[in-house]
């Protein structure tokens, strides 16, 4: 694999993507032992338990929602979409980093990704799963949501294909499927490794089942490589398409603050922004707890931080253009919206999102910050909050004051809104905990390729 060749050279110049002194064997031991031999720590149990409880709270909140109706939330007329859609967009955004890292960076031959792509992908899947809950439950009659799918029915009536919500259904489900496949295919060789190393019968059985009879033969590898590349190719456009389509939910509507053409690029950038923030928020503790500093090195943190800095600026540009067109376009309603953002009842949140998404992340210009896990962790947290606020401002603030002054209103989230939101976070964490416990959170074989031994000297 020639691409790894130059990577190694690059690696020699810059901070390494893997600390020296490792062999194929040691890498494999280190990673697989986390799953196979390492005893379940108390911390894990506590963390998992907490996450699980919060997940139960989510189920309770949703159960009550189905019994009573969406009226238990703070939504109203004019603000028909509240937390549900805010969270949906937020989670989908977070779900972008994974595929970006695995697919796009793979195609760009950024081999440093090898040590973070696995759990980044897992994170993506779980985030998208969380996101997927909301479009369903936010409807007034979720039990009829299947009407959004085009199928031959006795009503002889199709869905309304002009509606962005319908595009969402397809975009998100496709994205989820591809991400799942991509993640799973990537897992197969490692599953085989685990199968072969597991000494517990059932573990062997289940890993074996999932490994689908992988023997690591040259034929397997050849097929594997092409399949993986193929999927990467498929996934790449999706990374852009999903959030573009999500942004259409707003861009297509006529609501001032929604109806703007800049949304697609600015949403995608924002998505990657928050996605990387989430990756770091997971990577930093994980590498500490499981002592993976050698695999997830400062180089990884730095690169992620740089990506955040870049995308952060794209987002900032988005805000700028929004404000500028609002003012320059001379449209009565857009101007009012701009004023409303800066001085209206939700102005506080708008300023806060500017601070979170634009000002604070500028700290990443400093190498010290980029290499200091604690700071990086906190900044990532701030960015995640900021991106959530951004969605809140876009959705709620815009709806709260649109065209007819007589119909202006306010949105006050209820306890059920909060329970649902935190519930999904709990669900996300639960899934992550399970993942790090039963699957190799770093791609073993791809790590191996980073070793000097993996070089194939051309004759």
């Amino acid at each position, binding site marked *: 694999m020639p691409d790894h060749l130059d990577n190694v050279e690059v690696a020699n110049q810059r901070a390494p993507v893997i600390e020296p002194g490792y062999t194929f064997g040691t890498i494999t031991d280190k990673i697989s032992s986390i799953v196979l031999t390492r005893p379940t720590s108390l911390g894990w149990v506590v963390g998992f338990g907490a996450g699980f409880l919060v997940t139960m709270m989510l189920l309770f909140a949703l159960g009550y929602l189905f019994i009573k109706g969406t009226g238990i939330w703070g939504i109203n007329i004019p603000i028909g979409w509240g937390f549900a859609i805010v969270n949906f967009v937020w989670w989908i955004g977070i779900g972008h980093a994974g595929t970006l890292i695995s697919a796009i960076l793979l195609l760009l031959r950024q081999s440093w990704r090898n040590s973070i792509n696995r759990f980044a992908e897992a994170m993506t899947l779980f985030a998208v799963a969380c996101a997927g809950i909301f479009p369903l439950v936010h409807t007034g009659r979720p039990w009829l949501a299947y009407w959004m799918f085009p199928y031959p029915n006795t009503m002889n009536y199709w869905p309304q294909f002009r509606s962005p919500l319908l595009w969402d259904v397809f975009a998100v489900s496709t994205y989820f499927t591809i991400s799942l496949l991509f993640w799973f295919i990537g897992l197969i060789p490692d599953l085989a490794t685990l199968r072969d190393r597991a000494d517990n019968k059932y573990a062997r059985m289940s890993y074996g089942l999932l490994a689908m009879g992988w023997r690591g033969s040259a034929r397997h590898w050849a097929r594997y490589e092409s399949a993986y590349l193929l999927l990467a190719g498929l996934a790449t456009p999706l990374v852009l398409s999903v959030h573009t389509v999500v942004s259409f939910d707003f861009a297509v509507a006529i*609501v001032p603050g929604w109806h703007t053409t800049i949304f697609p690029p600015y949403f995608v950038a924002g998505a990657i922004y928050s996605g990387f923030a989430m990756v770091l928020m997971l990577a930093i503790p994980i590498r500490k707890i499981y002592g993976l500093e050698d695999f997830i090195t400062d180089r990884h943190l730095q690169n992620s931080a740089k990506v955040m800095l870049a995308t952060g600026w794209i987002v900032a540009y988005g805000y700028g253009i929004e404000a500028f067109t609002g003012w320059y376009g001379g449209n009565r309603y857009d101007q009012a919206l701009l004023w409303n953002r800066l001085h209206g009842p939700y102005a506080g949140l708008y300023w806060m999102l500017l601070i979170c998404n634009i000002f604070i992340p500028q700290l990443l210009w400093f190498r010290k910050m980029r290499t200091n896990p604690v700071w990086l962790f906190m900044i990532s947290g701030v960015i995640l909050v900021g991106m959530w606020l951004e969605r809140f401002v876009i959705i709620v603030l815009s709806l709260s004051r*649109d065209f007819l002054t007589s119909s202006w209103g306010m949105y006050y989230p209820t306890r059920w809104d909060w329970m649902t939101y935190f519930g999904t976070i709990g669900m996300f964490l639960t899934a992550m905990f399970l993942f790090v416990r039963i699957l190799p959170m770093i791609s073993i074989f791809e790590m191996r390729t980073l070793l000097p031994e993996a070089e194939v000297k051309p004759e």
Partner: protein
Amino acid sequence: MENAKSKREDVCPGKKPANRMDRATVERQLKETKGPEYWRSLEELAGSPEFQDMLHREFPKGASEWLDSVSRRGFLQLMGASLAMAGMTGCTKLPLQEIVPYVRQPEQVIPGVAMYYATAFTLSGYANPLLVESHLGRPTKIEGNNLHPASLGGTDIFAQASILGMYDPDRSQAITHLGDVEPWAEFVKEIKGPLAVQKALAGAGIRILTQTISSPTLKDQMQAFLAMYPKAKWHVYEPVNRDNTLEGAKLAFGEALETQYRLENAAVIVSLDADFLYAGFPGNVRYIRDFAKKRNPDAEMSRMYVVESNPSSTGAKADHRLPVRASEVEGFARAIASAVGVNVGGAPSSGEHTKFVESVVEDLQKHEGESVIIAGDHQPPAVHALAHAMNVALGNVGKTVVYTDPVDSNPVNQVESLRDLVSDMRTGQVDLLVIMGGNPVYDAPADLGFRDCLKNSKISLRIYHGLYENETAELCHWSVNEAHYLEAWSDGRAYDGTVSVVQPLIAPLYAGKSAHEMLSALVSVPDATGYEIVRGHWQKQHAGPEFEAWWRKTLNDGFIEGSAYPPKSVSLKLQSLPVAAAVGANSLEVNLRRDPSVYDGQFANNGWLQELPKPMSKLTWDNAVLIGPKMADREGIKTMDVVTLELGGRKITGPVWIQAGHPDHSVTVHLGYGRRKAGRAGTGAGFDAYVLRTTNALWFATGGKLTKTGDHYQLASTQGYQTMDTGDGETRPLVRAATLEEYRKEPKFAKEGEPPAALTLYPGYDYKKSPDAWGMTIDLNACVGCNNCIIACQSENNIAVVGKEQVVKGRHMHWIRVDAYYQGDRDAPQAYFQPVPCMQCENAPCELVCPVGATVHSSEGLNDMVYNRCIGTRYCSNNCPYKVRRFNFLLFQDWETPQYKLMRNPDVSVRSRGVMEKCTYCVQRITEHRINAETAAVRENREFKIEDGSLQTACQQSCPADAIVFGNINDPNSRVAKLKAQDRNYGLLADLNTRPRTTYLAEIRNPNPELET
């Protein structure tokens, strides 16, 4: 029922209630079983001894037959619809008595075809002529009687909403004695004794307290009764009485007279604190129609000056509105009067508003004979007298003002009348008290202490006859459940004296008794039916062979032709008026007014009215202490701050609402709230302002004291933001208005921002392809914000009541709302009304975004909403620039209460939880007319056409101002098409290129150039 009983026992100890079955129990038992099994359970029930016992009490006549199975059906007839409530829905019958279908729908009862009957709804003695739609014997919708001069098709909110009152599950459902259900016969038996005793005393101990009565039949009966018991006394009291008006007429002309106005002839209108364009003012429906006609800017446009003490919809329509304290109005009246040559002594004081007075006077004198001065019912007699004098002086009598005999058949000073009663009660001269209707315990002036008096008095027999087991019934031995006017025969006079006959639409749901039946029981003819009594009365008047025909015609039309009072010639006897003591300019004035929604409190349990936004504040479910912005700033009080209002040692506590345009040093509080015993909707809503009301200050008094308590109280307003100014200093052209001059100069002023016709990449649908393309215009110049359209729509389209909490959250369901905007100086703003239904946009933003195609366009340009397809994403509402879509966030419809099942319009789906709904242009009416027109066309083999004007939406039909016009815009000769062609026509937010089918006619004001500075 239980706690009511316990309450009663402490009032009048005695009979221990035996454990007996009453109607309620029967219904409860039957409710369990539905449909087929229903009959079986009825049989089983019939076996039980308690049931037979109850039967003997309830239906002594039917009881014996009951025991043989054949005539058990008779039970059905006896119980009438109350059985339907026992689980067997929709089989109520018309009364067995004669009912004549109205000409408009002359078919026999055909399932699925509605019938219309003429009747009348009486409020404070004034009859509102109605036309009631009935489906299989169930009244479902109330409309105005278009033949009747007092209606011309329009109605008011109280009449519209009264149908909900009839189906109100909290109505008093049985005759009770100390809480026990008793049959009518038992009641008749029980009163025999006391009446016999009184007979000996010539009825010296009998007192009857009624509300204002205009029913000729009832008057007749009352006189018969008084003839039988010469010493008995008939007292009249209503909290919203017209004593001032009456006394004013006496002052001016020396006799009690009814004043009618002919606004169709009035070029200049001066209102002295008279809210004559809102429900509750006698004749308001007709006045609105006439007023609106004269406001057409393309013809002779009238001019209106309003001097008022609290912002009203009448003031909002004024060309010049002057907010002053109620106590200052008399000064104005005197100033204007003396200027137009009425000298009654007293120095004319017009305060700092001399210029205003001068221009008013000038205008009045310019229009002698075509001007009118109207005084408000709550202004003191002097002001009324002055108004009369001025109308005489200006030669308006006979032209714009007409005097007739009073509609009130017993025109006494009601406060005095009640005062006499109370003193008699105190001195123990009353042995038998019959309270017919009303709720004096709750609404009598506080200083009379009616409640305590009734509670502690030795009156041996106290009988209450009314619709509700209310505060008054609670303190009476007997409570006889009254039959609702839709269940009973009666009659009454409209504001012009025309007699309407009230005919029932349905058998009494709870075997209630009408006032006629009650009275006839008191003259010991207990079994006379209301029908016999009313018909009998008129037969006496119209003896002769042609009576049958005459009677049929009367029932058919709903009123007696030519029964209007003839105008009386009057001569002014007004010499001099003592000047009222001047009030301190800074002494706080407290105004007590009838509530715009619940009137005097009798509609407190009417959900539609409780949730109806009050015209100016848009408040629902509460009354508030209204204060002006100036005062609020001075006192540092904010909206929803709780304050204590003190007046003459009496205190109330309530939340503040800052009302733009409210005069300074004055607060307004609405009566009718704070009911203790109203029902599920009314009990506990708001605070009771009657506490402040005393006989010497029924309507306003100075010397009030306002203090902040520091608490806060959540008020529910449907429109939080009441101006067109956005924060950034812009003003949005939502309501477009101009003065008459500006309009004449620039007729197309309203056309701003209309986008060019073809502004789309996609070719639009050609609506010419269909015979009809529906459109609507709303004339903002005519609209007086009377709220009628809202209730009419609610009734026609089965719209749910959501309750205060949901309104606070912003989830009210009204398909058409009336937005109120205040522009300019907050203390004397220009107010505008704008009714907003669905605009039925041709480029509907909602349709584009619905993922399941639940809202799509019809070939006739309707924006169809398909409830059963909706999955409730609310995307359509987000994308609706007019925010006219309403969402069932929770299960708002009451699917349980059986009465409501009977009430609903069978032609409109009842929406469930989780679906979006909105105005449909009354598509059920469109379909009905289309189908009728089509079948007719095919049968008679002619061109299909729906006659313009034959098809009316509910809002249009009920609009007394005729502001809403609906029709086919494909037909250039249709009224709506012509209106849309006018210069004043504009589309709301048309700059968004939504191409609304509902458009507005801009508002034109006709201010006096003198005052335009």
